[in-house]
């Protein structure tokens, strides 16, 4: 066998598998998005199986664009993803700078910190929404109740009592409403992915130019300006990569939304597709194509940003 053929042969199983995995389902989604296709229809039984004679053109797309849910789902997807990105990057940089210098127990703190990243998403969601955020039985509810009791008890105390009498009765927050459950999702995913950002930023900080830093210290640069003009620029590329990888993962966030907000209106694009797919396959497919377009816009934009550095 010639030298050129063999490498190709070795690569072909991986390439072919991925090609099939990508093209066939995507092709079918594209096809279904242009026909009328519903799973249950007593009135029009011919729509219940996919066929070219049910051609609908851009009708499904129009239907999806006109549905209130779609716009909300896009806004909500972007809101959730952007909030998570913002929080994880800020927290990630701060924590990475904090634990980068050696201190007693650095290794243990590192292990403690990274642990949330390995928790499966379903457990993450169940744990947070029930045992921590629940307004009555979760830690949140218990903490709020205790604070109220404490304030009530201190109200009758001499000297300081007037101060506590001014305190309002605290109300626990229910994280199962539409808007608040989006916050719950943001909290739990931020908890899971901040460790990932910390890990990457820490790795990058270890390759920071120490001589430059020492020079800055000798020149009397404050810690803040060291951070601002040396560390932060150094973290530029890792931040871009963290943003890219997380954007890919979080645009298709599913398990957390499913568990936290089943049916309460807090939906993102994948969840909306799942809802449509219970009956209206045409609409589900059109929404899927929109999701692909959205993901591509984000991906092209981000790959431009980091693509070159990947191959070095």
């Amino acid at each position, binding site marked *: 066998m010639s030298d050129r053929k063999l490498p190709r042969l070795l690569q072909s199983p991986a390439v072919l598998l*991925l090609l099939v995995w990508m093209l066939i389902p995507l092709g079918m989604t594209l096809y279904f998005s242009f026909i009328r296709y519903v799973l249950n229809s007593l009135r029009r039984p011919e729509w219940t199986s996919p066929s070219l004679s049910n051609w609908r053109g851009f009708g499904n797309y129009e239907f999806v664009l006109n549905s209130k849910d779609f716009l909300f789902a896009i806004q909500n997807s972007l809101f959730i993803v952007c909030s998570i990105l913002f929080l994880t990057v800020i927290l990630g940089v701060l924590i990475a700078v904090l634990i980068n210098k050696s201190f007693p127990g650095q290794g243990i703190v590192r292990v403690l910190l990274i642990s949330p990243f390995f928790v499966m998403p379903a457990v993450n969601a169940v744990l947070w929404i029930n045992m921590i955020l629940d307004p009555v039985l979760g830690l949140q509810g218990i903490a709020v109740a205790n604070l109220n009791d404490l304030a009530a008890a201190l109200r009758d105390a001499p000297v300081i009592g007037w101060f506590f009498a001014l305190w309002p009765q605290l109300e626990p927050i229910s994280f199962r409403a539409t808007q608040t459950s989006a916050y719950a999702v943001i909290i739990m995913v931020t908890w899971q992915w901040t460790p990932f950002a910390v890990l990457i930023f820490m790795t990058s900080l270890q390759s920071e130019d120490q001589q430059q830093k020492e020079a800055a210290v000798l020149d009397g640069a404050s810690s803040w300006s060291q951070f601002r003009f040396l560390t932060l620029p150094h973290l530029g590329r890792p931040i871009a990569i963290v943003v890219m990888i997380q954007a890919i993962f979080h645009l298709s966030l599913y398990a957390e939304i499913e568990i936290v907000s089943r049916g309460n209106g807090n939906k993102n694009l994948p969840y909306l597709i799942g809802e449509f797919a219970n009956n209206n396959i045409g609409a589900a497919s059109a929404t899927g194509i929109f999701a692909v377009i959205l993901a591509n816009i984000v991906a092209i934009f981000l790959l431009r940003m980091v693509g070159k550095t990947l191959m070095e």
Partner: protein
Amino acid sequence: MAIVAKPSKLGTFGRPVLAWTVGLLFFFPIFWMVLTSFKTDADAVKPEHLIFFQPTLENYLNMTENYDYWRFARNSVITAVMATLFTLFVGIPCAYAMAFNPSRATKDVLMWMLSTKMLPAAAVLYPMTFLTKSAGLFDTHFLIILVLSLINLPIVVWMLFTYFKEIPKDIIEAGKMDGVNTWGEIREILIPLAWGGIAATALLCFIFCWNEAYWTVRLTTTNAATLSKLIEGNRAPEGLFFGRLSAVSAAAVGPIVVLGWFCQKQLVQGLTFGAVK
């Protein structure tokens, strides 16, 4: 102004205290889950038993009865192990060819592979359900193994590629001169040399397979259902079963979190595709 590198009080005492606080805070939910798993269901929702309670193993002992835990765990192990092996089987030759015989297209192929990760899974949900149901593969181990392999293949190829690139080409060339064929090269030279990298890749792939929560939930019902599906199916106990739910959750994530501790360094390389070193 010029105070030269004199460690401040905050530096010597504040940093460790703050760092430990942050670390414990992040670990706290996991700790809380494990703690709750040793409470009875009744104690788990009583504020007076928040910290002080009579620990019990009952939740772990009844896991089979309550949730049929071992069936789901067995499915998770089978699918994750098989998917990891299959991914390596396909990925190693591919990464080998890319690292040692790169062509002009190699870079593009690698980027294209990465781009398949960006395809939102939900977009192809129905066709996948349709295809697998009509092929009789829905809810089978085979299907889950295949899907888990395919979604992790890009990451595995990238990771292996970054490890193989570090191996001097001369060593492989020397093997060629000795008349070893390609499989021999891979088996007798490449795999022993890159053993650490391959093991790390396998470990990470296994973790991702274990934690996958979209396809394993949507493409199974009972037969091939994994632990993700088990937890997802018991999502809303409304305070009824905090104890037993914590136990089964802890049993689902415990082994993986511990495995994760061992491969945190590789995680950086794997998920940033070698761009952060």
